[in-house]
């Protein structure tokens, strides 16, 4: 049997973290939207996919990966704002299944639109020139872009954490996710907070699409498996829990990548096994509180 060195294991762990970073970003957006609006956003994978397309498009347009990194979440977030304002908002107060069905339908509209705009084959991508190559981590060489993914995710999640824990608007979000009625009594137009949270969640989904684009095929269907995997992550982490989304995202990425090393044919299955095990031991997820919102 071939020796699998300790260094290879560590490198594979890093690869898993890079993959998990994307999952964590997606799950944070899903959890933020669910925790605040009680909307299960079935279009989250589609926002991810649109982010990948627009990321490539803006990159071609401006020639700069960094411009694209700013423009893409703004554009996808703007689409998210319009969807909340005109499609999701009329469904509040009618139960959880209405927005679920709506966003499910919306995801297919977005998929078709990208097919019409960019063709059935999707668009080619490559790692931006300034992030090509490998870096020596001391345990071996690791692709620069994957390291960038881990760092970028840490920065985005750190900024989001500061926003939610340390700012006035973050306090409104924390209070409003637990008791929208008292926040309304205290003068907050909660509908506007929901709008903004949906915008932030979808902007992060778009950003993760852009970040993931150089590492995978960009086509209109790319969001479908990603949506399923993101739900696995939110269920493992606990619906509505942001720390849960981050930890579970990284965990799922590492489990996937470690299984690929030993038994590639079971990699996809392994994350569902992980979900089943977590659900058996802690039905509310790692960080979830019993009874959804806690």
């Amino acid at each position: 049997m071939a020796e699998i060195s300790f260094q290879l294991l560590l490198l594979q762990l890093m690869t898993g973290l890079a993959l998990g970073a994307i999952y964590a970003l997606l799950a944070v957006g899903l959890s933020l939207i669910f925790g605040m609006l009680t909307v299960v956003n079935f279009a989250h994978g589609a926002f991810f996919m649109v982010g990948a397309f627009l990321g490539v498009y803006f990159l071609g347009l401006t020639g700069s990966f960094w411009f694209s990194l700013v423009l893409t979440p703004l554009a996808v977030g703007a689409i998210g704002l319009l969807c909340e304002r005109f499609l999701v908002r009329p469904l509040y107060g009618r139960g959880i299944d209405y927005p679920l069905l709506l966003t499910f339908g919306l995801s297919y509209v977005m998929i078709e639109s990208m097919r019409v705009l960019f063709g059935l084959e999707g668009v080619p991508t490559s790692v931006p020139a300034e992030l090509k190559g490998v870096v020596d981590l001391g345990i071996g060489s690791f692709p620069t872009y994957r390291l960038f993914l881990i760092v970028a995710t840490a920065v985005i999640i750190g900024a989001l954490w500061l926003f939610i824990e340390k700012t006035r608007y973050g306090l409104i979000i924390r209070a409003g996710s637990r008791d929208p009625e008292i926040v309304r009594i205290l003068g907050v137009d909660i509908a506007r907070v929901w709008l903004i949270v949906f915008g932030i969640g979808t902007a992060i989904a778009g950003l993760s699409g852009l970040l993931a684009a150089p590492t995978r095929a960009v086509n209109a269907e790319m969001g479908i498996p990603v949506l399923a995997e993101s739900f696995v992550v939110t269920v493992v982490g606990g619906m509505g829990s942001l720390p849960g989304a981050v930890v579970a995202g990284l965990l799922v990425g590492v489990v996937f990548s470690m299984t690929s090393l030993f038994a590639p044919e079971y990699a996809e299955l392994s994350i569902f096994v992980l979900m089943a095990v977590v659900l058996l031991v802690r039905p509310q997820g790692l960080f979830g509180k019993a009874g959804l919102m806690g």
Partner: protein
Amino acid sequence: MSNAILSVRDLNAWYDRSHVVQGISFDVNAGEVVTLMGRNGAGKTSTLRSIMGMLDKRAGSVVFNGQEILATPAFSRFHAGLAFVPEDRRIVPGLTVRENLQLGLIASRARDTTDAMIDEIAQTFPRLKERLSQEGTSLSGGEQQMLAIARAMMAKPRMILMDEPSEGVMPVLVDEMFELFARMKRNGVTILLVEQNVERALSITDRAYILDQGRIVHQGTAAELLADDEIQSKYCAV
């Protein structure tokens, strides 16, 4: 009456099909303390909640400070100077006492004064002062009630509606609470109170209305109602 700050006319409200507020009319004058009394299920809470815009199906007229507000969105009442302390206190779990107080000014233009207001409020509520960094829901029932009132007072409202503030609160704290209401009244805050504690309530009340089955069945000054044992036993026994 021309100096009514709150004027309710033919107010009706429903939970789905059930018609729980059936044509209620009353006035509260600026600076007054007015109490709504009546048995459990009489419709007191529903009356306050429909004034606050929190029952979806409502009809009639509510004029606050010269503005018709019944159909306006619930959050706009805060900006008109109308505060509400709901029955179940609604201290937000996971937030500290300080953060709960901050919420009281979070939507206000005066939010830059939050820290100063918390210091000021802490003078009035010494029990909260020592517990500012504690989680709000870890306080005792009476302290949570004090916190809910303090939070509503942060924005210096012109008028405050309070739904059974003394319910489940231990007697020492109830004393403190009613002293506080008397002080609020002296400072010119108009109060609409729902209370089951008849003698306590009437001690600070100018006028009272008695509700039964969604309607007003009696009204009078505190002295008149205190003198009337029949009304008390018929409508106010808990």
